């Protein structure tokens, strides 16, 4: 085993050297602050989920183009719907070598666990990279072609026989489902699954009747003609789905987004903040990121600085109301 260990160490060392040399040609003379060691890129979700894939995609773009002088190392802290990650980043106050990719549990988790002692308005905002969108999906084997038929079908089936799949209770999908129920006055049986990809699969396998997946989660099945979007929870139609109406067009103000942002611990220096904003701006403008946004039906949503913080605070209040109306919090 000593042999193996040694060989493995040598292997790792050479790989590390290789990866460093691959990125070291990026020069950033203008920035006053630069990381002194690899940056911890905390992910608020477990390995393999949508948030994880997106964060690793961002890391890939940084690496591929050499946008940062030192590597960004993804670390998953998905425990407690991101509670673990939030607490970790809070406790790293002032440490400029930690950043975190967020999703909407950034609001809901501190609201549901006040004992966590996390106030997101104190975190250092870096950038909002995109807003992910939601659509109402059914299997293409059904005869349901529009929302009107959908509502009729759900009401006819009754709560016991209409299964809506989604991610965990209190998570985004369940909030969107609650909004639908309230607006159209029906009730469904909500079945939580581990991640959006699994939810999509359950719909195609006909174990559930409908979902509120992100377009990216259903895209493959949609292209293969296996699923059908009925309407979109956005103000305007998505470019990739020009024929799918929005709920607003149908007369109901149902709009919900999943923010995809990056934040840093509270109290890091202005220079460090500026450095990260610079890195993520390059990612945001990269061809890969822009292509991904268009192809997967995400909306561009570049936002930084105080504007981003006030956006977070506004969204937190909106989620407080949503959760309260669902009886999830008091």
């Amino acid at each position, binding site marked *: *085993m000593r*042999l*193996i*260990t040694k*060989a*493995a160490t040598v*292997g790792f060392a050479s*790989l590390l050297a290789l*990866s460093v040399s*691959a990125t070291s040609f990026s020069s950033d003379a203008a920035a006053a602050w630069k990381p002194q060691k690899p940056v911890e890129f905390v992910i608020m979700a477990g*390995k*393999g*989920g949508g948030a*994880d*894939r997106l964060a*690793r*995609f961002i*890391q*890939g*773009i940084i*690496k*591929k183009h050499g946008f940062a002088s030192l*590597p960004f190392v*993804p670390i998953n*802290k998905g*425990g*407690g*719907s991101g*509670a*673990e990650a939030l607490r970790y980043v809070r406790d790293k106050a002032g440490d400029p070598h930690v950043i975190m990719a967020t999703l909407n549990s950034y609001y809901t988790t501190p609201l*549901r666990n006040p004992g966590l002692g996390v106030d997101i308005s104190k975190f250092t905002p870096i950038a909002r990279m995109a807003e992910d969108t939601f659509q109402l999906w059914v299997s293409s084997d059904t005869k349901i072609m529009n929302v009107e038929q959908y509502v009729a079908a759900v009401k006819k089936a009754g709560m*016991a026989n209409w299964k809506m799949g989604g991610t*965990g*209770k*209190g*998570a985004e999908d369940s909030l969107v489902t609650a909004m639908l129920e309230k607006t159209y006055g029906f009730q469904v*049986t*909500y*079945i*939580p*699954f*581990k991640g959006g*990809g*699994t939810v*999509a*699969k*359950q719909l*195609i*396998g006909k*174990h*559930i009747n409908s979902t509120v997946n992100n377009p990216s989660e259903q*895209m*493959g*099945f949609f*292209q*293969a003609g*296996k699923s059908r979007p009925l309407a979109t929870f956005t103000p305007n139609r998505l470019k990739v789905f020009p024929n799918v109406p929005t709920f607003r067009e149908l007369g109901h103000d149902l709009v919900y987004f999943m923010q995809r942002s990056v934040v840093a611990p509270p109290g890091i220096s202005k220079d460090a903040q500026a450095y990260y904003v610079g890195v993520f701006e390059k990612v945001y403008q990269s061809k*890969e990121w822009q*292509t*991904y946004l268009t192809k997967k039906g995400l909306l561009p949503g570049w936002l930084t600085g105080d504007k981003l913080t006030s956006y977070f605070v506004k969204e937190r209040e909106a989620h407080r109301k949503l959760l309260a109306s669902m009886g999830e919090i008091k």
Partner: protein
Amino acid sequence: MDVLAALMDGFFIAFEPLNLGLVIFGCMAGLFIGAMPGLGSVNGVAILLPMTFLVPPTSAIIFLAALYYGAMYGGAISSIMLGIPGASTAVATTFDGRPMALKGMADKALVGAAAASFVGGTISIILFTAFAPPLADVALAFGPPEEFALMMLAFATFIGLGGDDIPKTFFSIFIGLVMSSVGLDIISGNPRLIFMDLPGFYHGINFLVLAIGIYGIGEMLWTVEQAKGDVIVTKVTVTVRGIIEALKDLRKTKKVMFMGSILGFFVGILPAAGATPGSLMAYGVARTMSKDPDSFGKGNIEGVVAPEAANNAASTGSMLPMLTLGIPGSPTTAILLGGMVIWGLEPGPMLFIEHKEFVWGLIASLYAANFFALAINIAFVPAFMMVLKMPFTILAPIIFILCIVGGFAPTQDMHDVWLMLVFGVMGYLMRKLDYPLAPMVLAIVLGPLAEASVRQSLMMSHGSFATFFERPISGTIMLIAIGLFAWPIFSTVRKRFRSGAYGAEG
């Protein structure tokens, strides 16, 4: 015929010098990463993914797939030689691999593991080549009730047959189930059983922490007591003839190998399961099939062959839902999937149509990776055997350090290291008191899957258990599982009856 033509094209891609070189390098790197406790294919693929931007996407996935494969082979090495599971997928290999090494049959165990991995890998690639699209439909047909039925079957294989004390087996399973429910309830999102309010318990008890603790540390404590500092195994000569003999001996295990491969493949293609449950189930079934179940856990080669065939088969199997449905069948494929997005490839039903050369290049390179991993592995057997020549006073601290690193690496949290040490002491005590450890490990792996699927099923059926029997697939699996559960009662009654009859005669 189309398939064969496409596969031939794939071979041309796989045998391009760059790709072939990457296959060999990937296998080597994977072997070492897999052999390092705590570092498994997930970490290997995650660490090396960014490196792949230097080459075209097809070459990149070929490299990562070879790495994934190599890691599956490598995991067995530390399981057998040190008793520390090299990766979660190799935990079942420790059950019999380690006892074999202690009996001086380490070469046989290593060769058996490598050969079984080869067979498992090859059978599953053939299945993959021939039936990928229809098999994707099988994966889709598995909803929550079917998943739960499958979990019941897995538990049944561990209780149903075999010589272990049945009450102790139950106890071990229940302890495992309790530990598997620590952390966040996936349905309601509420924290459960957070011992002493320690934040580290929020992410649950990592299965690998438990496995490294009870096998690595527990085993070490046990050996310290037994060996008192001596070289544990004196007979460590390795000869080419010995290896050939070992390969020949494996013909006896071909049934188990075949079973492990098929089972592993099917468990692998079901999203949510993956190679770890597959290998544990294969171990359970091998024991069920065996004429001599009592010898399992004490160094039966079938106990090494079955899980190793299954974990390699499952690793290929789990690429199927990734490529055809865009859903990863295991944590490693989840990261591969992330890579594909960066390369601009869209996994899912369209991939086979739009990026033929990518898919077939990958499949062909899996054949090649399998072959090279086997060759490299066998070539290194003598080097691995050196480990056993070390006196235990030197080996024990090495094992200890590797366990600590292995406990820390996956989550990078000291909490897990402390927890692992606690499990180590617990494992030692359970061993001393003769409690079976394998059922506990099985329970902590399958517990969360079983819990989620049973709750989802019951929510869908509004509390009716009939749902598990009404659906054809889950009903069939359930009936087999119940049969296996009932078997020990039946056989005990039969034994009593027989001995009673003999008594009457005498």
